[in-house]
């Protein structure tokens, strides 16, 4: 019987099997941010366990609320900063070098095929795009990860998601994943890994694959995963060139992680995306999804471009094609938070930032920003936001606010129109 990529990664990292149903895995990367880690640090200190299992394997960023907005968030940042210094964690990213964790860490080459990755953040599933097993965890798991470098998981089953056909104009990875979540519902993949494959995925950039895997959690999945291939090897090349003779050698080596042809899946779903239209969410759950044309005319007060879902350079480039030479509508305010300093710099060099600003966008520093309504870009009660983020929960971006999730191009078009619109009308 063949194995899936996840089963291969589990087999290679198995530390213990505490029951038939559970395994304890050795972890390659423990990632930390300032919202969920300080409380773990304080607890470890109180227990006299202020240690880390391996400072090289811990990656730390301040990203959710940065620069700090008040004394409480300043304290969270300080606890994290002091801890990273005290424990000699050299991969620590503070103001000036910081950005959204799930965009920043891949960009630094920290995620590799076959890795096990944990973080006290549900969108850790993003990193499965590299052929890794990457899962969000809570604070206690984080404490044990920091201290021992292990984490327990139930053996997940794998759902194979085959994406076929050809994406039409104005339709992107975001539309694909929204459509998939609509079909699976918010718990359709609970305790499962969503393995994305098929010609559409093969043709996707790493950025697009990250968008796909990012929202696997919105269907309840433990992780999303894509097979590591040439696209992966080329993205990682600056970080792996010492290890391999050439890109071909890396591509070949990555094949050892690929799911076997006779691997067992709990379900297999095929999505032909040839006729897929741009999608949008309409309610307070990420599976409440419609064709964007069905929501056309819905007025919005704010447009938010950014986050670990869609704050990468490709997203900005795509949005800029719609914004170029246009102005946002008078009833709208628009915010761009490039996901990382590298994205920001690149967008400056390519003239994208100017396009956004000429269109009337406010550009913030790299941060999670409005995505979780904790710092800037908070909505007032009754306000509506068109957003490139991943969660539309009631109150997510501010009490009484409504968030409609969509692609960067759809958000850009909506900003210009002042109301939700099918972006293909402007392309």
């Amino acid at each position, binding site marked *: 019987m063949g194995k899936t990529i996840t089963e291969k990664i589990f087999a290679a990292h198995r530390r213990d099997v505490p029951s038939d149903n559970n395994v304890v895995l050795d972890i390659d990367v423990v990632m930390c941010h300032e919202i969920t880690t300080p409380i773990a640090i304080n607890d470890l200190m109180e227990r006299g366990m202020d240690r880390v299992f391996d400072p090289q394997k811990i990656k730390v960023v301040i990203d959710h609320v940065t620069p700090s907005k008040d004394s409480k968030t300043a304290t969270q940042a300080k606890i994290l900063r002091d801890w990273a210094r005290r424990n000699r964690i050299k991969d620590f990213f503070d103001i000036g070098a910081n950005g959204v964790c799930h965009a920043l860490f891949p960009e630094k080459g920290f995620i590799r095929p076959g890795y096990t990755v944990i973080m006290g953040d549900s969108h850790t599933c993003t990193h499965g795009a590299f052929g890794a097993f990457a899962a969000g965890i809570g604070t206690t798991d984080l404490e044990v990860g920091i201290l021992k470098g292990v984490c327990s998981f*139930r053996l997940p089953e794998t759902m194979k998601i085959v994406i076929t056909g050809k994406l039409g104009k104005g339709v992107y990875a975001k539309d694909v994943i929204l459509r998939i979540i609509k079909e699976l519902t918010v718990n359709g993949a609970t305790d499962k890994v969503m393995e994305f494959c098929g010609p559409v995925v093969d043709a996707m950039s790493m950025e697009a694959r990250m968008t796909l895997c990012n929202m696997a959690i919105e269907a309840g999945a433990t992780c999303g995963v894509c097979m590591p291939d040439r696209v992966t090897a080329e993205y990682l090349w600056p970080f792996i060139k010492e290890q391999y003779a050439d890109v071909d050698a890396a591509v070949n080596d990555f094949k050892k992680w690929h799911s076997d042809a006779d691997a067992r899946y709990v379900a297999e779903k095929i999505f032909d995306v040839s006729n897929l239209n741009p999608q949008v969410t309409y309610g307070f759950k990420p599976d409440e999804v419609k064709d964007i044309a069905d929501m056309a005319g819905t007025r919005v007060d704010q447009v938010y471009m950014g986050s670990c879902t869609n704050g990468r350079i490709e997203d900005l480039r795509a949005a800029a094609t719609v914004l170029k030479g246009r102005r946002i509508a008078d009833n709208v305010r628009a915010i761009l938070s490039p996901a990382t300093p590298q994205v920001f710099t690149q967008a400056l060099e390519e003239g994208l930032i100017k396009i956004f600003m000429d269109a009337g966008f406010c550009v913030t520093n790299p941060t999670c920003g409005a995505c979780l309504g904790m710092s800037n870009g908070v909505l007032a009660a009754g306000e509506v936001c068109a957003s490139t983020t991943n969660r539309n929960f009631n109150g997510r971006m501010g009490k009484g606010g409504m968030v409609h999730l969509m692609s960067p191009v759809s958000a850009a078009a909506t900003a210009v129109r002042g109301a939700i619109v099918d972006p293909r009308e402007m392309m």
Partner: protein
Amino acid sequence: MRFNGPVLFLDRSDINTDEIIPARYLTEISKEALRPHLLEDLSLEEFDPRADIAGKRVIVTRSNFGCGSSREHAPWALEVNGITVVVARSFARIFRQNMFNCGMLAIELPKKDIDSLFALGDKVTIAVDIDQETVITKVATEVCCKFTLNSFDKALVQAGGWLAYADKKY
């Protein structure tokens, strides 16, 4: 920990972590500070967090409880309010793991059992027996529901949580 007491019924599926404890309280660095904010943003008709939560020890709810973010603040917000058991049709993975990691109980029951618990109406008291793996209600008509606990999850509860377990073993 003892796992029994009056029940808070939440008759809805997909109650997410933002509803259990909103993100705006994640800047708190003590568990106790979460106490007044449990279920503050829950969308459920006629639910009044202050009046309805007081004195409750067990939550009974529908499916996919705790979906959304990974925040362990959700189980902590329950814990500081004295609620140490959630009985549901199903849970989101991270929330369920967080409950056991904290030495608390996330019990899954089939739909018919959940329905029969809801049918009892308010003012129900529940006792959970981990060894016998049963949920027993104490009202005029006694209902007894059998559940199965993963042996590892049980070991976590008995050890007082994952940190204590892992510290000894790894």
